[in-house]
């Protein structure tokens, strides 16, 4: 059963007054709540989610002084949960290798490749986000139309139309730029 805002808030305030039992009860109620929160938002493995839940519980504990007793408890809680999620991904992403970097370095020379990619990025920037994303997926990342559609949760015809329109705009832009 999901605990209600009033119940959680009551436990939190009691914990702030120094009642360790209520504080423990609060953290126990928060664990499944946070698990659901992260499972819904973060597309990652079970270990990752449990890490996030624990980090957030620690934050709730160490930063409990920043809760204002007159305000909504869940707003405070989920603000912390969201912050921890962003922070977590920022940290873990930093350790992932940049895709294809080795190839780029050995085959083409790094600068050419990056400036070419930057040109493409600049161009794609003038398009609506969906068109840019679809061109990137089908023409640069090498996904099939069906894969791109599944990845974005849209229909295949939508993908085709987006790519077509986007490319048309780009061609017009490049030709216009030469003149």
């Amino acid at each position: 059963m999901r605990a209600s805002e009033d119940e959680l808030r009551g436990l939190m305030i009691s914990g702030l007054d120094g009642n360790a039992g209520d504080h423990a009860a609060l953290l126990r109620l928060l664990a499944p709540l946070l698990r659901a929160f992260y499972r819904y938002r973060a597309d990652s493995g079970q270990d990752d989610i449990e890490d996030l839940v624990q980090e957030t519980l620690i934050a709730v504990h160490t930063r409990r002084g920043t809760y204002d007793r007159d305000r909504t408890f869940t707003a405070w809680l989920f603000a912390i949960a969201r912050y921890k999620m962003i922070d977590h991904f920022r940290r873990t992403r930093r350790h992932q290798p940049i895709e294809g970097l080795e190839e780029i370095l050995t085959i083409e020379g790094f600068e050419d490749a990056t400036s070419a990619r930057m040109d493409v990025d600049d161009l794609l920037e003038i398009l609506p986000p969906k068109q840019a994303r679809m061109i990137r997926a089908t023409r640069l990342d090498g996904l099939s139309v069906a894969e791109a559609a599944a990845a974005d949760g849209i229909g295949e015809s939508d993908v085709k139309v987006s790519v077509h329109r986007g490319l048309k705009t780009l061609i017009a832009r490049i030709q216009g730029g030469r003149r």
Partner: protein
Amino acid sequence: MNTDDLITSLSRDVPPVRRGAVGRRILLGLAAGVLVSIVYVVARMGVRPDLAAAMHGFPFWMKWGYTISLSIGALVMAAQLARPETGRLRGLWLIAIPTVLLAGLGAMELIQTPPGEWLRMWLGHSWMQCPWRVLTLAMPIFAGLLWSFRRLAPTRLRAAGAAAGLAAGAFAATVYCLHCPEVSAIFVLTWYSLGILLATGVGALLGPRLMRW
């Protein structure tokens, strides 16, 4: 570590938290920083010799009115950004009021002064030092606020850094008034504000790095 075990170990240490803990933490860091700045002005820059007389005059209170009201406005924002659920910032317009008032005073000053004197009035005696001194005095105050914020829970780190920088700059300018003998409104509006803005910029740059938790 198992989540249940974690909860058990966390719950071993549950000291009571008084109401207003956030405000107290901020004021403590602030007070420590301001104290260091005052000591620096007294010991290194020197308090202006005519301070007692100046405190009976208009320019001194014009300057303090500007810097103190900016300080309060900045603190109001910093206190909001010290909590995770900031939502929409309230009171942003508070810092516009003193700026607009001072600009009005500056305009009146310009009208009453012959244009030939304008440049001298605007640059005063110390325009080159003023912004840097304000920035220097802001550093200990910013450090104090950083000490406060590192135990609080800001989630918009750049905004929190900027607000702390703004507060540090405004309090530093308040302290600097003990030394600075300048009297013109457009001087204060330009060079004091520039120093305060520099401190705000430093805060915005450092916030995301130093306030993470």
